[in-house]
């Protein structure tokens, strides 16, 4: 277990680089990408400036949620190797600064979205920030092994927001895009939590491998992969996309399924022997990028 000072010298202003780190820029890249894809897949033209602003608001909203998550979880982050060097657990910033920064950024992103796009996009953005902070971070994460399953909804909102920013409504396709990310989140995070489970166990976070065991988690990964595949193929099966998305979806889902089977068949309990889990985790990121990129190419080719 890593022990890191949580104390911060109040007279020392936070470094702007630490404020930037508080927004979790790497996580933000996937959020921005799926939000942009939702916006580009919408069946209406969007002014480049307003489209850029909508994506910027999604990024700022995700950054605000990340900052508020780190504000609330500073004690937890201090106990895990992976997160111990974040600005708050490392003592480089006061908790109050993180709270003010997170709330300010959240309010700013929602107001700007309302000005540049419409009320619906701003409302969904506000709901997604509140869901991530209140439902996932505060309520579920420390209480249930299903934290990722329900909390995954927070990360599934961006394509819905992007679509709503252009059209002002929500139809079947953006709901399916929401479902894909929602069902993708458990296999993605459980694969990670399998090979860093000692970190979660030390911090007292009830992730599935800690609570239900390694074998059960591997089975759950495979079980959640099946509805995820159904959701990912549905846009093509329902005639909402063309052959480009359809073929990309079939190939990506086939690879995902093979990797999920490899995880289910793995019997190793040591992190260094969890090659299939690491492969699935790495591929799951490529999978989501590939699927959403194929969606945009498909919609633009048809248009």
């Amino acid at each position, binding site marked *: 277990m890593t022990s890191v000072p949580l104390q911060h010298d109040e007279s*020392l*202003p*936070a*470094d*702007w680089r630490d404020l930037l780190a508080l927004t979790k820029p790497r996580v933000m890249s996937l959020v921005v990408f799926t939000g942009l894809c939702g916006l580009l897949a919408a069946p209406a033209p969007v*002014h480049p*400036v*307003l489209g850029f602003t909508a994506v910027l608001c999604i990024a700022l909203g995700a950054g605000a949620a990340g900052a508020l998550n780190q504000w609330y979880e500073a004690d937890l982050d201090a106990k895990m190797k992976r997160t111990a060097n974040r600005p708050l657990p490392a003592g480089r910033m006061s908790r109050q600064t993180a709270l003010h920064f997170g709330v300010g950024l959240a309010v700013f992103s929602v107001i700007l979205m309302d*000005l*540049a796009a419409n009320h619906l996009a701003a409302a969904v953005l506000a709901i997604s920030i509140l869901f991530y902070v209140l439902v996932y971070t505060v309520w579920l994460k420390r209480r249930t092994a299903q934290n990722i399953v329900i909390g995954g909804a927070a990360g599934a909102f961006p394509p819905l927001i992007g679509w709503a920013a252009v059209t002002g409504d929500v139809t079947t396709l953006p709901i399916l895009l929401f479902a894909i990310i929602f069902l993708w989140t458990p296999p993605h995070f459980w694969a990670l939590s399998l090979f860093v489970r000692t970190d979660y166990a030390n911090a007292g976070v009830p992730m599935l491998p800690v609570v239900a065991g390694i074998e059960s988690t591997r089975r759950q990964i495979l079980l959640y992969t099946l509805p995820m595949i159904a959701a990912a193929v549905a846009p093509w099966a329902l005639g909402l996309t063309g052959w480009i998305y359809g073929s990309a979806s079939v190939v990506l889902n086939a690879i995902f399924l093979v990797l999920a089977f490899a995880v289910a068949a793995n019997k190793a309990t040591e992190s260094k022997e969890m090659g299939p889990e690491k492969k699935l985790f790495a591929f799951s990121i490529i999978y989501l990028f590939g699927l959403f990129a194929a969606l945009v190419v498909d919609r633009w080719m048809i248009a």
Partner: protein
Amino acid sequence: MSPQPEDEIIRKRQRERAKVTAILLGLFVVLMFAITIAKMTINQ
């Protein structure tokens, strides 16, 4: 009396934050101007 090293770090961070804030505020003004023009274009 020469400034303490701690004071120098505080001043350095304040200067850097002031610069970043100024750049962000400038970009915000440009963005608001562009949004206004874009909305006017759409309404026409």
